[in-house]
């Protein structure tokens, strides 16, 4: 088994940059997913939030730590995203930041982020939320320390929401009618994790 990555501030900055770019590119797709089983704003929310996060990170001094970078991004996400995903993603990034500054270890940080989402939102795997992408991804990283495998697990997890009936979030109002649609938050989670792979690889290369 590989060793868990110890992302530095540069990797974290690159992650936020890459994530913002991917969310901007996929904004309309994510919003469309949310139109089908939610209120049609997820892509726009997250795009607004990620642009603010990117700005906040760029406004940070050169000396900021990895943890400070994620904390700043998380705070901006909370301040600008709104909706359910704002506090959830913002809370996750802040928890990851705290964890990184303590341990420096990505596995621990990912677990901390996932715990934050689960604690804030109360959702478990199978509820058709971002947790369905996040939890398997974190588990995969814990087991393999392979970022590609982790990103694939997130994607597979996101796809698994297609057949689920939502029990949390706005899609839950649809009951049976939520089946047959991807969860927008799970889709964006897969995208954010994929951005992390790219960031880690590009910075190292």
């Amino acid at each position, binding site marked *: 088994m590989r060793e868990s990555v110890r992302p530095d501030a540069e990797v974290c900055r690159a992650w936020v940059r890459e994530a913002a770019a991917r969310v901007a590119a996929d904004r*309309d797709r994510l*919003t469309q997913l949310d*139109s089908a*089983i*939610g*209120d*049609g*704003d997820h892509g*726009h*929310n997250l795009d*607004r939030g990620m642009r603010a996060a990117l700005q906040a990170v760029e406004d940070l001094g050169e000396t900021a730590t990895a943890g400070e970078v994620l904390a700043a991004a998380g705070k901006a996400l*909370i*301040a*600008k*995203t*709104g*909706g*359910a*995903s*704002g*506090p*959830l993603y913002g809370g996750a990034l802040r928890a990851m930041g705290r964890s990184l500054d303590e341990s420096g270890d990505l596995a621990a940080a990912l677990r901390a982020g996932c715990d934050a989402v689960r604690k*804030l*939102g109360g959702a478990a795997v199978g509820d058709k939320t971002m947790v369905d992408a996040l939890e398997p991804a974190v588990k995969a990283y814990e087991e393999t320390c392979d970022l590609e495998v982790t990103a694939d697990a997130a994607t597979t997890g996101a796809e698994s929401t297609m057949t689920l009936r939502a*029990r*949390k*979030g*706005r899609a*839950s*109002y*649809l*009951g049976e*009618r939520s089946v047959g649609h991807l969860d927008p938050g799970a889709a964006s989670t897969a995208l954010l994790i994929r951005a992390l792979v790219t960031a880690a690889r590009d910075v190292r290369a």
Partner: protein
Amino acid sequence: MKKVINAPEDVVPDALRGLAAAHPGLRVDAEGRFAVRGDAPVRGKVALVSGGGSGHEPLHTGFVGPGMLDAACPGEVFTSPVPDQILAATLAVNGGTGVLHLVKNYTGDVLNFQLAAELAADEGVAVESVLIDDDVAVEDSTHTAGRRGTGATVFAEKIAGALAEERAGLPAVAAVAREVNERSRSFGVALSAATVPATGRPGFDLPDDQVELGVGIHGEPGRERAPLAPAAELVDRALTAIEADLPLSGDLLVMVNGMGGTPLAELYVAFGEVARRLRGRATIARSLVGNYVTSLDMTGFSITVCRLTPELLRLWDAPVETPALRWGR
């Protein structure tokens, strides 16, 4: 998309600037995105703060003023507000005896208000939160997100606002808001979807001969589609759903609420059907007919019913002076 706006991203602050110009009795922070009553903070009075996605006007900004809310925090269109603005509003109206957050039960609203309440507590402000979840269209269980908050929000804001105006304490004001919520139920019917400025497309497609039963106020699709039917039948579907959950008798407060794009005459047609259906079984002691909890330009209506007690009726009748509700002074 055809809208009277400047740019989609400016709708919320632009509308707040208009609100400020139209209502000198309010103090509006268009950048910070909240509106407070002009005389806030009112010393010794429990302050009421509510908020939620924009696009539901007059909810909540139209209900700020003596006898109702102390502050409202509008989020982006159909998107819950963020903790910063809720915190700023909370601090701006805190009169020293605590602040009540009236929160519609949506995950986003719940989380953002929760974060704001924690931040307010850090600053030494006592905050209590009451969740409004009156929409019977949604399955209610501990395993789900629970019911949505819709029309009962207006009732709770008005009645709790009246009690706060009488200088009741935070526990009592919170308790009466909870009581209103428990005694209220809502059900919505959409004839067509809303178009959010940012996306420019209707939130869902509804064939010309179908309605969405149990629709949400953020353009969430409802639970079931049914053929377009006469007003009497649509009202019957809504009231049947409500009565399955809350038997109706005694004195009622009834609102027939427009979704935004439905003419007032149609709302009166619907209200006439509500009155006809309840005749002999319950008394419509008070009523509201109009656009109170809208969903942008969605067409359709919702019905909200509250089983009044004499005390709730007294508080409903108490003076109120806001842009959208005004009586008794």
